[in-house]
């Protein structure tokens, strides 16, 4: 088993290498002038500026030379220092964010991770729980109700549902504000008396002993968490329900009943562990998708995460930033796939022992 995990981890850089080739390959579909034009205002007057950009950054070099420079960096003509190079952690300068891409990721990714991790608890927990209840009460009222309830959420576009809860719980009474943190808290966070250990505000607030800031951060996350959970519940409910129904029809469940096992234990100890296996795969994909950017939800709630940053970069044709975000998403997918496979093995001895 450990051998398998090591092999999988060693594979990650190899696959990532392929991902970089693909991403950079897409970039080469733009010709040098098109890429340079993004950084130049009033092009007809400044044609020579464009040429100098192309020249300076080697935008007309052969594909593999450019790719190599993107990977490892390139000696700057003026300063003589190496600049760029994603393996050095330098993803370039983000025009849309007015700072380096690395800094955007450092600042914004923790915000998204925080939101996603808190959302996953109700999302998977309630989804799976509803699925089990629906399966155990197959075709009874509670089954129908759970299905209708969740399919309603599934049919809501997140921007509609998001606006609805904003209206109900913010516009009317100001209970749960949008954004990530209140201004007063933000000032404290950026002051010297507050140390940011992790950039997860809730964790940092706890570590600094500032429960008022923790409470403020949580209040800001309530609405996006509700939105993300509700619009995704149906997925988990349906998968859990159907795999639970399947498990309940298996011979080993009859065996368990024939042994005199309590119905509660038949469901929880015999059917559920088997039924959870397909849910794990889906949970992995969902978490990876959410981490890759909950673009719409973040935009609606004005939440400064990676999704809203990616959206504004894309709108402003900020290719360098988009490239970095795509790469990050690829990495998240790879890691979450690995975690899914390992979890799989824990749940299913047939996988673990073969």
């Amino acid at each position, binding site marked *: 088993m450990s051998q398998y995990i090591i092999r999988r981890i060693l594979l990650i850089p190899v696959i990532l290498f392929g991902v970089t080739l693909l991403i950079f390959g897409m970039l080469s579909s733009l010709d040098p002038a098109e890429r340079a034009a993004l950084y130049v205002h009033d092009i007809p007057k400044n044609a020579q500026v464009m040429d100098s950009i192309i020249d300076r950054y080697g935008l007309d070099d052969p594909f593999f030379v450019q790719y190599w420079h993107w990977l490892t960096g390139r000696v700057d003509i003026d300063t003589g220092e190496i600049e760029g190079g994603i393996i050095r952690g330098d993803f370039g300068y983000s025009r849309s964010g007015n700072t380096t891409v690395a800094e955007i990721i450092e600042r914004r990714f923790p915000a998204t991770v925080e939101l996603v991790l808190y959302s996953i608890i109700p999302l998977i927990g309630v989804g799976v729980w509803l699925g089990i209840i629906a399966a155990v009460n197959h075709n009874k009222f509670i089954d129908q109700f759970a299905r209708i309830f969740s399919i309603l959420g599934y049919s809501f576009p997140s921007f509609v549902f998001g606006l609805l809860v904003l209206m109900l719980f913010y516009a009317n009474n100001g209970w749960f504000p949008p954004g990530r943190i209140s201004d007063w808290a933000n000032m404290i966070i950026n002051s010297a008396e507050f140390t940011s250990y992790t950039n997860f505000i809730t964790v940092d607030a706890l570590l600094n002993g500032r429960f008022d800031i923790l409470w403020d951060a949580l209040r800001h996350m309530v609405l996006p968490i509700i939105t993300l959970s509700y619009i995704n519940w149906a997925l988990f409910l349906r998968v859990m329900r159907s795999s639970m129904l399947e498990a309940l*029809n*298996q*011979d*080993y469940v*009859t*065996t*368990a*009943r*024939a*042994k*005199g*096992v*309590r*119905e509660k234990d038949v469901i929880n*100890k*015999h059917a559920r*562990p*088997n039924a959870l296996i397909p849910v794990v795969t889906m949970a992995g994909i969902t978490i990876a998708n959410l981490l890759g950017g909950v673009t719409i939800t973040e935009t609606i709630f004005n939440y400064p995460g990676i999704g809203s940053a990616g959206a504004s970069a894309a709108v402003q044709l900020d290719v360098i930033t988009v490239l970095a975000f795509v790469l990050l998403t690829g990495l998240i997918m790879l890691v979450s796939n690995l975690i899914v496979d390992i979890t799989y093995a824990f*749940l*299913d*001895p*047939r996988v673990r*022992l073969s």
Partner: protein
Amino acid sequence: MADLLNVSNLETRFNTREGVVHAVNGVSFSLKEGETLGIVGESGCGKSVSVQSILRLIPMPPGEIVGGSAMFQGKDLLKLSMEELRHVRGAQIGFVFQDPMTSFNPVHTIGRQLMEPLEIHLGMNKKQAWDRAVELLELVKIPNPDDRMKDYPHQFSGGMRQRAMIAMALSCSPQMLIADEPTTALDVTIQAQIVDLVKSLRDELGMSIIWITHDLGIIAGLAERVNVMYAGYIVEEAEVKELYKNPQHPYTLGLLKSLPRLDVSEKKRLVSIDGVPPVLFKKPKFCPFVSRCTYRVEKCLQENPPLMPINDHHRAACWVNPQTGKVRE
């Protein structure tokens, strides 16, 4: 000896989308203490459903036990509360299923599954249950039982799994074992091992057995009495030797004729029964076997024959005596 189990007029049906399927239609039989009863019949004739109905193990819905009773030690199993029934299942009646490949839970170790009934019914703690489970695996002749306890079902061969299944069914020393085609999914040499194992365990532990099979050969060496089932009815019941010597229902006769025999020297083609058993959406007013029967007479289409006594230990549900070809009085 006293009756351990007395089933009477058991009636089970399935309410499916296509209609009501009458799977078991008024089945009555009894099992004495220490006795082995065979139930034979081809697939879909209601053998499994009738014994699973006794412990209410059929899925409900769509299954529904419409009527009858199953008296076991003075209690009607069909009327017990779920909680009372749970203390009978596994504790007083052990159950072995057909397919050892799917009857164990793939995510739990064999040991854990063996220990479960011991902890539930005998109140053993983990340590006691473990020791007892190892003994049980030893009893069913699994080598290195202590190590094999930690194995998962997929690490056991089919025969070993079925033996472990038997160990599990017998773990709480039940008075009665129901074996629902326990050898059907196994190859012939393993079948013989399992049958021998059950025989020796029966002699050792003195329990009663209901053994369901479609293999008349196995029944011959194992059971004292046999019920032949067809389309949810018992069509013939007799002591095992009597049944082989003097079958009184055309269906039994057909089953026996389709068996290869070593004691007859002349080479003959085996005879098969044409057709398949009917799916009963309605309880027939005629004999359910009539469409496949070569002995049929006018009366077979007018009235479904009840079980009629042939002699003290033998009853059959047929208007015709297939040995003589004459209509019964």
